[in-house]
């Protein structure tokens, strides 16, 4: 406690921190960025390893033989799907019953708040079909899920075929200790949401669905299968779930281990693993893979049908078959064997997957970065805010040279309080407007302007966002008439704003590291430099560039760049608009938190800094 109680040493430390504040901040910022970029360098990462003893060795013998038959079933499914023009419920029920499963259906319907133009749906009605294979070896208290979506068009027919083939094969095995639920869900995530809510008796998003007639035990793990061709070149693993939640790393390890054993090419973020980590291109590759993961996680949306399982403590991942122009092809039998092996391992679980990491980034499928390694990168950025806050505190506490009498002092305090409260309240009200109005006013907007509902929502959001820029700095004009020049005002406001931002980013980074880090990357420098005395026009420009909306715009372009699909500005802009509408939809459909977080907290916080810049 020496530092806290010895006044001399404290004074020395504080004077050093205030004198060297700016250089320390700059160093911290670059150190944070450098640390983050270093995470993808292979010697700094850890090799993945299986932590769960029950899944320790891959010594199971996979015997799934019926790949061709599964594909034939898939084609039959496709034919029926085309005939019915949607989910062939009766055919599926009959087929699952023929394979000896207990089959149930669940119908659901949902009206979206506004039409989804990407997937072209507004009023959604559908049916989920699922069959339960009861565990012969144990009391039916636990379950595993294998799901395949019934997508429109010619997609995912092979996945359903393989699912049915596996159901038939699994039915004849005697070693199952957990119920296995085979689920075919319609309308991808909406169907999945309905089924999960039905299974767990919750209703968080106001969707209407019929209650489930049959249930297995508590679900331990789930895999979602997406397969659109008869042969594939590689399998891609998708981990990112709702709000950036990730499944336990052991699930990824399990997939990787079986891919190695069976000899299937496996990728993550669609990127193969490379061995030349010491070359520049190898490092670039790893950075690209990790950045893709960061971007996807930061978006907070589920990137596969598995994404909603995570909310219920169920470890889940999506496995996607990719068919590209490589020579080496894998057939359906092999994928069946891979899934059989994974399910047999999951069947051995004695408790939920919990041994391995929940917070990680993956620069390749065989390497990961754990929370202990990536958090310092964020910590270095966050410490800048604390240093600035300390600096402001010291400035505020150094008494001005003239001593004022009591009256002026109290006036000053009240004055400061008022001038800080007003922008705080007003910017939060703007945030509430940004959150609530776009959906509320879509009808009015459609009546008055020649736009569709979706465009109306997105454009209203952008309009409110822009209008917010004009609002706050006009608010404190009224009481500037006071005789005392207000030197404390903006400092107090900045202190409040900086601490607010620090707490906000800290909490965000704990829940969703990527989002917190990306926001910190843009907001921290802005928070550190902005004062009323910097050149107005230039700083205003920088502030706008670094605002959350522009960050999103850049992220869209960057993401396209990372996926090797660069877009022109025109397309990028359209993509940006659709990303905003998707964000709002994700919030109202699945309860994703990114949109409310940005609208209600991050944007008002940014407005506070905007306010400081235009302080009079």
């Amino acid at each position, binding site marked *: 406690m020496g530092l*806290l*109680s*010895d*006044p*001399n040493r*404290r004074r020395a430390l504080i004077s050093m921190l205030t004198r060297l504040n700016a250089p320390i901040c700059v160093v911290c910022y670059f150190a944070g960025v450098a640390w983050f970029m270093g995470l993808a360098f292979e010697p700094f990462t850890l090799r993945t390893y299986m932590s769960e003893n029950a899944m320790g060795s891959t010594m199971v013998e996979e015997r799934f033989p019926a790949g061709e038959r599964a594909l034939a079933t898939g084609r039959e499914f496709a034919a029926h799907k085309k005939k019915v023009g949607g989910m062939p419920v009766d055919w599926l029920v009959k087929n699952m019953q023929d394979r000896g499963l207990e089959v149930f259906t669940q119908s659901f319907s949902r009206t979206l708040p506004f039409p989804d133009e990407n997937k072209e749906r507004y009023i959604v009605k559908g049916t989920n079909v699922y069959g339960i294979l009861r565990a012969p070896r144990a009391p039916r208290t636990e379950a595993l899920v294998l799901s395949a979506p019934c997508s429109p068009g010619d997609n995912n027919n092979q996945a359903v075929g393989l699912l049915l083939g596996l159901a038939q094969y699994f039915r004849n095995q005697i070693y199952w200790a957990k119920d296995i639920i085979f689920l075919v869900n319609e309308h991808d995530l909406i169907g999945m949401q309905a089924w999960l809510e039905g299974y767990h008796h919750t209703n968080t998003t106001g969707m209407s669905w019929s209650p489930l007639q049959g249930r297995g035990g508590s679900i331990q793990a789930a895999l979602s299968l997406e397969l659109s061709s008869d042969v594939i070149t590689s399998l891609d693993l998708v981990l990112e779930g709702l709000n950036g*939640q*990730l499944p336990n790393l052991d699930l990824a390890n399990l997939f990787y281990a079986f891919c190695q054993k069976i000899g299937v090419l496996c990728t993550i973020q669609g990127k193969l693993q490379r061995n030349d980590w010491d070359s520049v291109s190898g490092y670039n590759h790893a950075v690209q893979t990790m950045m893709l993961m960061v971007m996807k996680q930061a978006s907070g949306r589920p990137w596969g049908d598995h994404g909603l399982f*995570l*909310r219920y*403590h169920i470890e889940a991942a999506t496995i996607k078959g990719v068919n590209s122009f490589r020579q080496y092809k894998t057939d359906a039998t092999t994928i069946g064997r891979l899934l059989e092996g994974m399910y047999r391992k999951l069947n051995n679980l004695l408790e939920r997957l*919990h041994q391995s990491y*929940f*917070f990680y980034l993956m620069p390749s499928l065989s390497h990961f970065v754990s929370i202990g390694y990536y958090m310092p990168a964020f910590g270095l950025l966050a410490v800048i805010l*604390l240093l600035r*806050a*300390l600096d402001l*505190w010291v400035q505020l506490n150094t008494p001005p040279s003239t001593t004022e009498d*009591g*009256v002026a*002092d*109290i006036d000053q305090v009240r004055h400061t309080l008022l001038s800080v409260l007003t922008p705080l309240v007003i910017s939060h009200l703007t945030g509430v407007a940004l959150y609530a109005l776009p959906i509320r006013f879509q009808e009015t907007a459609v009546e008055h302007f020649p736009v569709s509902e979706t465009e109306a929502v997105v454009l209203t959001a952008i309009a409110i966002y822009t209008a917010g820029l004009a609002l706050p700095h006009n608010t404190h004009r009224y009481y500037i008439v006071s005789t005392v020049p207000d030197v404390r005002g903006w400092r107090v406001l900045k202190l409040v704003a900086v*601490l607010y931002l*620090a*707490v*906000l980013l*800290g*909490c965000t980074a*704990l*829940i969703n590291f990527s989002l917190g880090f990306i926001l910190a990357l843009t907001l921290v420098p802005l928070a550190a430099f902005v004062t009323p005395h910097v050149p107005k026009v230039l700083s205003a420009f920088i502030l706008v560039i670094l605002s959350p909306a522009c960050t999103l715009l850049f992220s869209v372009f960057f993401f396209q760049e990372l996926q090797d699909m660069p877009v022109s500005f025109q397309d990028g802009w359209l993509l940006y608009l659709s990303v905003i509408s998707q964000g709002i939809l994700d919030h109202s459909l699945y309860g994703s938190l990114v949109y409310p977080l940005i609208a209600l907290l991050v944007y008002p916080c940014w407005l506070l800094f905007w306010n400081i810049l235009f302080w009079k």
Partner: protein
Amino acid sequence: MAAPLTLLLIVAVTIRAALFRSSLAELIAERVEVVSPITAWKRVVEGLALLDLGVSPYSGDVFHETPLIIYMFHFLVDYAEITFMLADVITAVALYMAVKEYNKQVFRKQKFALEADRYPMDSLELIRSPKEMYYVPLKVAMFYLLNPFTILSCVAKSTCGLNNAVLALFFLSTIKGNVLLSAIFLCLATYQSIYPITLCAPAMLYFMQRQYIPVNFHRVSFWWFIVQYLFMYLGSLFVLICLSFFLLGSWDYLPSVYGFILSVPDLTPNIGLFWYFFAEMFEHFRLFFLCVFQINVFFYTIPLSIKLKEHPVFLIFMQLAVISIFKSYPTVGDVALYLAFLPVWSHLHRFLRNIFLVSCVLLACSALFPVLWHLWIYAGSANSNFYYAITLLFNVAQILLVSDYFYAFLRREHHLTNGLYLKRKDGSEATLILK
């Protein structure tokens, strides 16, 4: 001054009423930071249901409030929201009046000392002016009513709010010099949560100071006063306990209320220090550590009373803080009560050393509680260690805050007697170091 206070009360009640009507109320009532197993409204309702069925409310292990509370709500259950808002209002008004009276006394005392020329010349800038003291009572009421912790606690209908009201009334009657009422309110507070028993010491010190009874173990008048006060205190406690017995017709409530507080069987996470330790501990150490942890609350009374025997009101503040940090089931409502006293000591600000650090930590912790709870319970990706780390940090910050105020208070007193600019023997400037 009545107008701002009324305005404040109206604002505070409006906020609470609005929150009661919103969907947030249910969410808040479930938060472990806001309600403890003792104070949870859910449990009071359960107790009421049992009582209506003619079963002892203490059968089962749900209800742990006192019999008087349950009989009070037997009549008031339909007006629960109003009761809790009223409790907050009473607390605020009582604190307001008490602090106003206390300020008057401080000022009078300071005037006498000035007239007697007891202060050194260079410490005159430490003298408090009536202007700066004018708003202190209002600030105290504001700190209590608009503190998010109090609002949360009230909206969750945590019975901690009632305990706070009783404690505030005790404070008011003590400051006003009413010995009997003070003893009765203190006894009511003790009856509800045991720990306020440590406030006996500051109350007696205050009355002795007020009645010019020297704190001297060889004087009869000293012992006579203690006997008087304890007689009133224990007498009313006896009456309350017997009353509870006659209301319920059994002694069930003794183990269920006081046993529950002292032996800490419920290890639901909260913002206190007990749950994690006792969840991790081997069973045969439990009794020993239970004693250690509980003695912690009571033990500080002795050194603090000796050190602060001239300043009983500051001692009350210290004791309230110590209770809310070390009690077995603390909630944010307890924290709010002693935080309300901070404006009374606003003149100590120039001597505070860690206030910036501490307030940052308290702020961050308050935000992190729900986040880590979410990660632990809902997302399943964090675990209890994460949550306990924040609890620990929160309590360390509170301890630092309190000890910082303690140090600042002592330092101001030191400067008031020895002068503000201390010199070493050789004439160079000296600094005070706390070791």
